[in-house]
């Protein structure tokens, strides 16, 4: 096994993991602080990606599109929280599942109504479309490097926000003990709207990063939402640090499984059997990981301290 392949897969895993972190961060805060299961979180990602694609098409600039889309997603998230979702905080998990599922359906259909059934084109910006030579004989897509950079930057900003600011302190207090935080005078109503807008903005960032790589289409949020749930459960619900580490673990394991599993399997069995079994086992890996983590550490690997 050569080093270049390993390096490339490590970068791919890092990239995927960081994108998962963007989605999982908002999800884990909403889950941890408001105790709310939000199935519509993936819809924010979808709406963000569509807004970015549209603004990019209108203005002709990816950067304007990215900025506009992120703002739009944050606004959409805040409006959603203000009008509908806050009614569900005091309800049980089942009502939240039903309510946010209904919102998910409406978002999907609303997007289909406005943009149609076909995937919307969103291409990488001109300045980042070429490959970059990292090592002798190894070049890597510059857009992927950009994604990694943005992911790390956002993670750093989140870290500073959570550990160094008053808002972050309130969020940590809310995740550790909601009632106590309220009793100590945290303005929960404004805090919750803020958290929601923040999570939605992060979804928008993820939409702008992943949109050019995957397709911008209806339903794009659903498959990745489940993986984001896996991430926050592995990391420990309510913990940003857990979401970050969990996302990296899931990203690397999933990427490594898809690359190396076929190689391992082809040594163990006939090529035909390996071609069938390897992708399935690779897809199962992260769920197996989650089940194992839950079995041994029922609160996740890095639960919020409190």
């Amino acid at each position, binding site marked *: 096994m050569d080093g270049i392949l390993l390096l490339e897969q490590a970068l791919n895993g890092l990239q995927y993991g960081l994108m998962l972190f963007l989605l999982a961060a908002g999800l884990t805060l909403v889950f941890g602080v408001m105790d709310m299961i939000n199935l519509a979180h993936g819809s924010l990602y979808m709406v963000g990606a569509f807004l970015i694609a549209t603004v990019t098409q209108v203005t002709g600039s990816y950067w304007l599109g990215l900025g506009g889309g992120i703002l739009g997603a944050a606004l959409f998230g805040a409006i959603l929280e203000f009008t509908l979702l806050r009614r569900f905080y005091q309800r049980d998990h089942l009502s939240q599942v039903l309510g946010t599922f209904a919102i998910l359906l409406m978002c999907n259909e609303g997007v289909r109504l406005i943009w149609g059934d076909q995937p919307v084109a969103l291409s990488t910006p001109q300045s980042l479309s070429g490959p970059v030579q990292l090592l002798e004989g190894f070049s890597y897509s510059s857009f992927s490097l950009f994604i990694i950079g943005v992911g790390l930057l956002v993670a750093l900003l989140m870290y500073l926000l959570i550990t160094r600011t008053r808002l972050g302190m309130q969020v940590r207090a809310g995740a550790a003990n909601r009632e106590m935080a309220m009793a100590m005078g945290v303005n929960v109503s404004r805090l919750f709207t803020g958290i929601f807008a923040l999570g939605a903005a992060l979804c928008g960032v993820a939409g702008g990063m992943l949109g050019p790589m995957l397709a911008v289409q209806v339903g794009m949020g659903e498959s990745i939402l489940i993986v984001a749930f896996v991430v926050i459960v592995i990391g420990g619900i309510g913990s940003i640090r857990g979401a970050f580490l969990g996302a990296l673990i899931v990203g690397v394991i999933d990427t490594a499984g898809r690359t190396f599993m076929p190689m391992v399997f082809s040594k163990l069995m006939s090529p035909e059997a390996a071609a069938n079994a390897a992708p399935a086992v690779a897809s199962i890996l992260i*769920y197996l990981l989650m089940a194992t983590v839950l079995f041994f550490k029922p609160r996740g690997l890095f639960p919020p301290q409190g």
Partner: protein
Amino acid sequence: MKPAISTSAAPSLLDHPLHARWAAVLLLALVAFPLLMGTNGGEFYVSLASRILIFALAASSLNLILGYGGMLSFGHAAFVGLGAYTVAIAMQSGLTSAWIVWPLAMGVAGLGALIVGAISLRTQGVYFIMITLAFAQMLYFLVVSLKTYGGEDGLSMARRSVLAPGLDLARERDFYYVTLALVTLSIWGLARLLNAHFGHVLQAIRENEVRMSAIGYPVYRYKLVAFTLAGALAGLAGALLANLGGFVSPSLMQWSQSGMLMIMVILGGVGYLYGGLMGAVFFLLMEELLSTYTIHWQLGLGAVLLLVVLVAPNGLASLFKRARGGRHV
């Protein structure tokens, strides 16, 4: 129908009467339905009714663990899928008798539920939701990888199962009556179970697990039995569903299917005997109705679901209860 065994003389909170009079009227209407539909073009509606009944069975089986056991399983479609695949695979190897294949489907799904439950029930709350989802996803990807049985494309069945001479399941009406009989039997069985000692213990565990285990009940075992039973019933629904469509595919086991079953139960009424039935009827009829008017029917469906969850927090069945002046849960 006599009220089932009860520990106290007066019906308690834990009892779930069948409402025999209403049930009889409903059953009569359901029996008459295909006759009213006639044979010219009525088959479509009869087949739709079969589909709704099958989903009512699947949702009712989920309601047993979700509503009465307090176990929020997000992987119930996996057991439906296991049942469906058992029938389709048996068909491919030449086994067509419903007397063998359907119980086999229940057995396979029940065994799957026993294994999944044995591991999952060690976790609590939200983590239980996620671990059942994880197992369902594993089974989903496992089925996708089974290229011998169609993989991602699914597996068609040459014909429907064979039940008895004179009963041709390929005829929509015959299939409908068999489905109706099985669903009726299942719901009646569930009512018996819930009003018996086992059902009372299960509901008490839902209310206060710590206390029940302090009193000395083997809580884990009770929950596991309920989980397995629900899995087996879901397997029966899967066997019927495979027969109805003549086709099975991994999409039967997708997480969105588990979500849909959960939605049906919540919609109908968590912990109400007829909750699963009402949810399935309402959800699928809504879907059918709205989709004839507009291709954007999901927008309407979403709005209706949102309305229900805001107006009737305990599901549609609770509205009836309120109207009848019954207890509030």
